[in-house]
């Protein structure tokens, strides 16, 4: 037998999942509205808890272990608290200090590594050997990569007039991008399909209780939505938010 805790999770998670799926039917449904709001509420709460827990678990013990030596951390916590002042218009100017520090430091930290991983290493990886290769196929692959990168780059020129050889390169770059988008679509589809499969498998198996509860809950949701549409449209109007 399924205990109350696991049974409750099973029922509510099925309501949440299939409530959200009701958007696919194209009809208004209070189940969708409930699932959407429940998810948003709990997700907000979870974000706050885990972020604040980090402060209590890591930062506060560090300060308490040696307040005198860890005075810079105390300054950091004060700056963090100043961030919360953003919620009121009279104190929002004080929140600009931590925002400035976070923005400036954040962008600097990411850019200094991006220069290597995003630019230099990518250019290095594009400079491929075109002679002295093992097989003709290696040559074809390397030439394709080098030329594709060059042609696609010409597609992103916005500050010069595209004419002559640049126009031909631009056109070829566009065709390469179309081919690439087809490939990316297929890879994205693979990813999203994997999500659906994992999700559905958890609701179907084991057949009892997961499969049974799923079937019952989905039938109840579909029948109740149909009844609201057919018999109680005014109630449906009230139950679906704008």
């Amino acid at each position, binding site marked *: 037998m399924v205990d109350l805790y696991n049974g409750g999770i099973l029922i509510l998670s099925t309501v949440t999942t299939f409530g959200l799926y009701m958007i696919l039917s194209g009809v208004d449904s209070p189940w969708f509205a*409930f699932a959407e709001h429940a998810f948003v509420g709990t997700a907000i709460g979870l974000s706050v808890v885990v972020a604040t*827990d980090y402060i209590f678990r890591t930062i506060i013990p560090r300060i308490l272990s040696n307040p005198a030596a860890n005075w810079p951390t105390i300054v950091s916590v004060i700056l963090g608290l100043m*961030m919360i002042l953003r919620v009121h218009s009279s104190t929002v100017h004080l929140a600009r200090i931590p925002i400035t*520090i976070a923005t400036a430091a954040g*962008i600097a930290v990411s850019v200094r590594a991006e220069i290597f991983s995003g630019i230099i290493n990518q250019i290095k990886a594009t400079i491929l050997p075109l002679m002295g290769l093992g097989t003709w196929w290696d040559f074809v692959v390397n030439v*394709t990569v080098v030329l594709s990168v060059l042609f696609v780059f010409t597609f992103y020129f916005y500050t010069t007039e595209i004419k002559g050889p640049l126009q031909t390169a631009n056109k070829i770059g566009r065709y390469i991008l179309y081919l690439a988008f087809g490939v*990316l679509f297929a890879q994205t589809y693979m990813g999203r399909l994997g*999500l659906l499969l994992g999700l559905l498998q958890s609701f179907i198996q084991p057949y009892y209780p997961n499969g049974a509860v799923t079937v019952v809950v989905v039938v109840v949701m579909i029948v109740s939505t149909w009844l609201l549409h057919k018999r109680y449209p005014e109630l449906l109007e009230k139950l679906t938010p*704008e």
Partner: protein
Amino acid sequence: MVMIVFISIFIYIPYFFEVPQALTNLENWFMDTIVIIAAFAVWVGFITATRREVVRIQRRRKGWFYAVVILVLSWAMVVIGLGVSKTNVIFEFLQYAFVLPGDSTIYAILVFYLTSAGARAFRVNSLESALLTFGALFVLLKQAPLGEVLAPWAGPMAIYLQDTIAMAATRVFSVSLAIGSVVLAIRLMLGQEMALVGLVRRVASREEE
């Protein structure tokens, strides 16, 4: 702007040069501080969301009772998670019941829209659309184990497309993104992107525009 330049310099210099320990400590302090600020910033969103939902309830807007759902669940999570324990049975119950299935479902819904898009948008009526369609077709055949059995000829072509064409396009996106980030950082230091730090010049009147 002075603060931005000062902070940026003390992040870049220790990364590229040998510097005294004091400068390295300052760099570490900046990195520690931005993590702490990020942790507190979540509260700004939480307080703003609470205020918005309370206003919605007070004004009895259509569907105001769903605002009660958001408030009750979010505050229950915060009170139990911080006040009792984050491993508390009710806290974990709410995660398993709403957060995990909700998050999974939102992205899984895209499969249906992608299927519908694939059926409607992939029309072979020009060179561009033919390239788009055949690029997707080869990779779909290769990715599926059944495709490798029924259409083994698609595999080498799909690998070629993935490892050359798609990789080249994605590489160009990465380089463009990185160059854009560098330009943004320089513009921030020069005071050209002050909207990022919340300093937006208010327009007093239409004439001023």
